[in-house]
C-alpha cells in the first residue's frame, strides 16, 4: 500500500487528469478525495472507485468522463489470492497530467456509437410525407408539411406563418417577465421596525420580487445537410429576433459566425443578403468546434437566465468527444439547452449519429423542427422551468 504522501501526490495528478477531461475538480476536492481514501478499503477496487466518484464527480453528465479517467489512471495489481497490491497510478505521476490532456481513448460505448453511424443510411425519407389531408384547411396542411417538401409557390405563405409563430412565441416569453403582483410582498420585518413606537402598523413596507428576464441564444446549423431547412429556420430566427429583444443569433457550419447584427433590420430580404456575404454554407459541420468557439468567445452571453437553442441535424464531421465536452460546458452555464432537429420529424429517425449520440444526454429538451407545428410547439419549452 502506498504511503499517504504518495497517495496525495497521485491524487493531485489524478485531479489534473480529470480537469483535462473537462471535470472542474478543485484542490479542496482532491484533498477530500485523499480523506475519502482513508475511509475506504484501498484494496477493494470497487470501493475506491465509488469513494472517489462520490467526492470528485458533481453532476451525472461527468460520470462517463470520470469512468474513462479512472479506468486509465488507476491500475490494480490483482495477483492471485489475497495478495492485492492496492492501487497504483497507471502512468508515472509526473507525466500523467500532460499525457492525458484533452483526448482519451474511445470507450466501448463510443465504439458502439461509431458502429451505429455506419449502419445508418443517410437521407431523410421525404416521399412518405402526407400530401393532402381532406377536411383540413390549407393552413393546417401547411402546418404539418415538412419544410423540405414545399413547392416554390407556397413559400411566401409559409414564411408569413413562420413570422406569425415567432411573434406569438416572443409574446409568450415577454409576458413571463412581467412582475406577478403589483407592489410586491409586504415586508413585515421592516414594517415592524418603522412602526415600533406607533403601537399599530400604519405604514406598510413592501419589497418587490426580482424579475426574471430570459435571454435567448440561437445557434443555427447552416451546413450542406441542413440546406433544405436552414432557409425556414433562419426566417424563424429573424422573426424571433426582431420581435423579441434579448436574442443573440449565431450560425455555424465549419466555423461560428455571430449574425445578431445582420439579422436586425426591417426587411428579411436585406438580412438574407447580408447573411449570404458571410456564409460558409457548405461542406461539413463541425458542431463540437463551433460550440467550443462559442463557449470561448461568447460564453459570457450565457447565464442561468439563458435558454440556448441549437438547430441542427447532428451530422457532425468533428470528434464526438469534443462535442460532448463542449455541450457539458454549455449546459453548466445555461439555464436550459434545447436542441431542435429537423430529422426528428421523420418517425423512423433515431439520433444515432455519433455527434447526436454524444450530445443527447446533455440536452434538456430534444424536439423536431421540420414543420410549422413543431415550431409552434416550441412555446411550451421556451421557459426556464
Amino acid at each position: 500500500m502506498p504511503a499517504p504522501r504518495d497517495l496525495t501526490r497521485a491524487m493531485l495528478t489524478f485531479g489534473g487528469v480529470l480537469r483535462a477531461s473537462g471535470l472542474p475538480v478543485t484542490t479542496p476536492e482532491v484533498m477530500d478525495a485523499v480523506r475519502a481514501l482513508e475511509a475506504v478499503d484501498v484494496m477493494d477496487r470497487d470501493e475506491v472507485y465509488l469513494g472517489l466518484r462520490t467526492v470528485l464527480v458533481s453532476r451525472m453528465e461527468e460520470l462517463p468522463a470520470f469512468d474513462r479517467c479512472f479506468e486509465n489512471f488507476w491500475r490494480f495489481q490483482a495477483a492471485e489470492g489475497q495478495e492485492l497490491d492496492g492501487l497504483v497510478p497507471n502512468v508515472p505521476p509526473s507525466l500523467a497530467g500532460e499525457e492525458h490532456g484533452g483526448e482519451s481513448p474511445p470507450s466501448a460505448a463510443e465504439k458502439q456509437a461509431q458502429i451505429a453511424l455506419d449502419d445508418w443510411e443517410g437521407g431523410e425519407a421525404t416521399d412518405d410525407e402526407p400530401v393532402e389531408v381532406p377536411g383540413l384547411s390549407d393552413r393546417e396542411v401547411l402546418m404539418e408539411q415538412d419544410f423540405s417538401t414545399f413547392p416554390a409557390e407556397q413559400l411566401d405563405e409559409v414564411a408569413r406563418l413562420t413570422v406569425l409563430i415567432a411573434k406569438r412565441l416572443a409574446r409568450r416569453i415577454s409576458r413571463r417577465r412581467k412582475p406577478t403582483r403589483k407592489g410586491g410582498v409586504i415586508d413585515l420585518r421592516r414594517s415592524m421596525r418603522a412602526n415600533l413606537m406607533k403601537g399599530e402598523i400604519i405604514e406598510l413596507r413592501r419589497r418587490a420580487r426580482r424579475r426574471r428576464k430570459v435571454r435567448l441564444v440561437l445557434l443555427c446549423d447552416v451546413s450542406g445537410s441542413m440546406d433544405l431547412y436552414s432557409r425556414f429556420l433562419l426566417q424563424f430566427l429573424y422573426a424571433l429576433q426582431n420581435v423579441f429583444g434579448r436574442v443573440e443569433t449565431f450560425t455555424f457550419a465549419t466555423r461560428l459566425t455571430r449574425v445578431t447584427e445582420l439579422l436586425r433590420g426591417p426587411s428579411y430580404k436585406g438580412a438574407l443578403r447580408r447573411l449570404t456575404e458571410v456564409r460558409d454554407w457548405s461542406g461539413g459541420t463541425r458542431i463540437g468546434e463551433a460550440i467550443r468557439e462559442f463557449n470561448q468567445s461568447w460564453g459570457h452571453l450565457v447565464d442561468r437566465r439563458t435558454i440556448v437553442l441549437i438547430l441542427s441535424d447532428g451530422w457532425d464531421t468533428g470528434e464526438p468527444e469534443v462535442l460532448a465536452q463542449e455541450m457539458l460546458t454549455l449546459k453548466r452555464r445555461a439555464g436550459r439547452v434545447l436542441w431542435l432537429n429537423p430529422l426528428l420529424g421523420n418517425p423512423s429517425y433515431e439520433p444515432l449519429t455519433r455527434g447526436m449520440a454524444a450530445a443527447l444526454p446533455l440536452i434538456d429538451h430534444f424536439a423536431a423542427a421540420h414543420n410549422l407545428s413543431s415550431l409552434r410547439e416550441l412555446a411550451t419549452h421556451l421557459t426556464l422551468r
Partner: protein
Amino acid sequence: MRAEIKKIQEMMETADYVTDPAIAMSVHLAMTLKKPLLIEGHAGVGKTEIAKVMARMLGTSLIRLQCYEGLDAAQALYEWNYPKQLLHIKLEEGSTHSTSEKEAAIFSPPFLIRRPLLQAISQPGAPPVLLIDEIDRADEEFEAFLLEVLSDFQVTIPEIGTIKATQPPYVILTSNRVRELSDALRRRCLYMWIDFPGFEKEVRIVTRKVPGVNERLAREISRFMETVRTIRLAKVPGVAETLDWAQALSSLHADHLDEDLVAETLGCVVKDADDVKRLKRELASGGIGRFVAAQS
C-alpha cells in the same frame, strides 16, 4: 468491504430501504467527511428516503426544508413572530419602559421563530440530519444564501448575535434537475446520482415493500417497468409508480400479469394522458409478451 460500509448497508436494509454499495458508500462518506451530500435522480427513485433512513440509523432527528420557488431566508432560516411582537407592543402601551427596552424585549429569543436551517444549527445534543429537499425548485438567490450557511454553519441575527453550530448537522440535498444548480454548490457537496434501479434491485424492492406480491409477479412487474422506461414518455415512471402498481395488483390478488389486468391498472404506471395513450399503443402493437418476456 469496510465494516462501516457493510454496517450502513445492513442498517439501511433493516430500515426497509433496499440499497446498493454506491448508496452505502455515499452515506458513509457524508458521515465521515462531514460534507453535504447532493443526491440527484429522476422523481420517485428514493432520494428523500435516504435522509430519513440516515436519521433513523444515527438515532437523531430529521429536519426537513422543502424548497419551492420564492423560498427566502425568512422561511428557511428565521423570522420574528410578528403577531406576538404586536401583542407585546400593545400590552406594553403606557408602560414606563424606554424604547430601547421595548425593542430589546420584542427582539429576544422568545419572539424568534426558528425555521429549519436555524433549527439544524442550534439544536442541542447530537447533530441532526438536515434534509434540503428539491433544492432545484428554489431560486438562485436562495442557493447562494444556502452556500453561505453550509460553509460555516453559523448565522448572524442582528438583534441577537451570532449563533454557531457546535456540531454541524449532516446535510442531504436532493434535486430533480428542474434547474441546473451552480457549480459552487456542487463543488461544496459530495455527489450521488441515483438511476432507476436495475431489474434485480427492483424485484428486491417490490418483494420487500409489498409482501402480498409473489416472486413471479414481482419479476414480471420489474421487467414490465424496465421496458416501459425505454419508451419515450413525458414522465418516466419511477420506483414509487412500481410500488403503487404492485400494491394495486396485490389488492386485486393477482399472481401474474395479463393483458386485461395491465389495461385496468395502467393508471398506476403512467400518469399523463398522452403517456397512457402511447403505452396502450405500444402494448397493442407488441403485446404483453414483449413487456414481460425475459430479455436475457
